[in-house]
């Protein structure tokens, strides 16, 4: 247990020591999105009966959680692989399951911290409600888990920083951007609505938003099932990779 807790502590300390980049910067980014989009659109637009700024904020919060959970595991792994300091965690008697859990929990914590930060600085700009806080927390946690896990796969697979950037730009960014953060998918043409239903991130955002307003595009329980299944699938893939020693113990 001490091994796991120490690894978790180290992963948290790692991002906390540079929290200006890892927490403050993404909060500022989300705030800029809000200021620009809501300034342009808030007076014209209502989505599902809420004003645009209020609609946008949970989307931005969740997007920040997801992107930062991904960034935490992937950048930690690639950094320690490139510098070679990964040996410090490979030499001790830590199992691959403990390794996985420590990294993913740290990623979820960073996601939650950034998400909370975004909520605190953007919450002033709209009147938010919190209809179902348990759903909010559930989606935040599992969504962070999916992305933290995906970040581990990317970090294990990538040998160089630009490969990781490719993974981020061609998979993670489109998935999060095309998930209904900035719009309700009902405003999309039918074809793109259907495509969106194959994007697990859409369910994360939609379920998360339900927790605030009690309205959503898809029934929240359905979203929860999709997100939970995504987590199990991604986690199993990650665990299988780690168990095989792929690129870490070759």
């Amino acid at each position, binding site marked *: *247990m*001490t*091994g796991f*807790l*120490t*690894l978790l*502590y*180290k992963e948290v*300390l*790692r991002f906390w*020591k*540079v929290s200006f980049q890892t927490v403050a910067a993404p909060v500022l980014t989300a705030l800029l999105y809000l200021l620009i989009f809501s300034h342009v659109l808030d007076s014209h637009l209502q989505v599902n009966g809420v004003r645009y700024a209020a609609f946008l904020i949970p989307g931005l919060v969740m997007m920040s959680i997801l992107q930062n959970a991904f960034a935490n595991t992937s950048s930690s792994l690639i950094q*320690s692989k490139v*510098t*070679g*300091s990964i*040996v*410090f*965690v*490979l*030499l*001790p*008697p*830590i*199992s691959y399951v403990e390794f996985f859990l420590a990294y993913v929990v740290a990623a979820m914590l960073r996601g939650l911290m950034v998400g909370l930060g975004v909520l605190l600085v953007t919450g002033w700009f709209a009147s938010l409600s919190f209809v179902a806080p348990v759903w909010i927390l559930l989606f935040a946690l599992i969504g962070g888990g999916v992305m933290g896990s995906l970040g581990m796969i990317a970090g294990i697979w990538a040998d160089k920083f630009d490969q990781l950037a490719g993974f981020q730009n061609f998979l993670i960014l489109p998935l999060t951007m095309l998930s209904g953060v900035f719009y309700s998918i009902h405003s999309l043409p039918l074809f793109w609505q259907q495509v969106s239903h194959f994007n697990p991130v859409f369910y994360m955002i939609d379920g998360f938003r339900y927790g605030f307003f009690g309205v959503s595009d898809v029934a929240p329980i359905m979203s929860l099932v999709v997100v939970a299944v995504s987590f199990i699938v991604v986690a199993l893939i990650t665990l299988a990779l780690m168990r095989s*020693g792929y690129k870490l*113990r*070759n």
Partner: protein
Amino acid sequence: MGVAVAIQQLVKCFGQLRALDGVSLEIAEGEFFGLLGPNGAGKTTLISCLAGLARPDAGMLKVMGYDVLADYREARRCLGVVPQELVFDPFFSVRETLRIQSGYFGIRNNDDWIDEILANLDLTSKAHINMRRLSGGMKRRVLVAQALVHKPPVIVLDEPTAGVDVELRQGLWQFVQRLNGEGHTVILTTHYLEEAEALCGRIAMLKQGRIVALDSTSNLLARYSGHTLNLRLANDRCLPDDLLARSSNTQGYRVFRLTGFDEIEPLLAEIRQAGGIIEDLRLTQTDLEDVFVSVMQEADGREGVAAR
């Protein structure tokens, strides 16, 4: 004495390359063991397999009786590895690094031992300094400290003195010898053969993934005992073939291995007859470096025969 490290028929391939080609080796508890060989011989690969950093393709490895795959937790708890590469975690200070490393091994409140390691490695004044700001030699010593946080019965040092200056090297060896005296098994790879000769009780020489010599240091020295006559000739080429075959060429000198001093006179006479002009002459006692060169040349010869 029990067996600290047991390796049987270890094979490790990287694609087509057989980096380790059937290595078997047993190291007893309390030994100071040297693992020598030219670059690319497979020393680091062997250590990686032992530490669980690399998966062997075949063979068996045990540390203090624990299989490195099946009982990996116990095996790793028994092993402290100083990696060859100068790696560090740039986020932490020296003390943080060592506390975290202790925690990975399940040890809390390890500060007493950490302080002792720091003092012995002359790092006490650097404890609060970030790893990034240490010199190469200091980083190397922190790597040694990291390998020792859990007081492993078996300590493996992969070229620990590369880039460490002479004075610190002495301090490091004193500390490692003390640990060895207290019962820790030490396995060392180094490029400094004088170091290995002075420290190691037993030595394995590795070449292209195979053990080509394995014996006590004194036996190895005795096997090639005697003296060498080193000659620098103005006209090296003029020597007849049999003289060339009996000698080796190192750093501009023709080196003749002698079994007795009475060989010197006829040898010099032969060279004079062949018209050799001697510019410099040295008589030296065989050291581990000579043994190393001989063993490697003999291994080449054997391979040559096998290839035919």
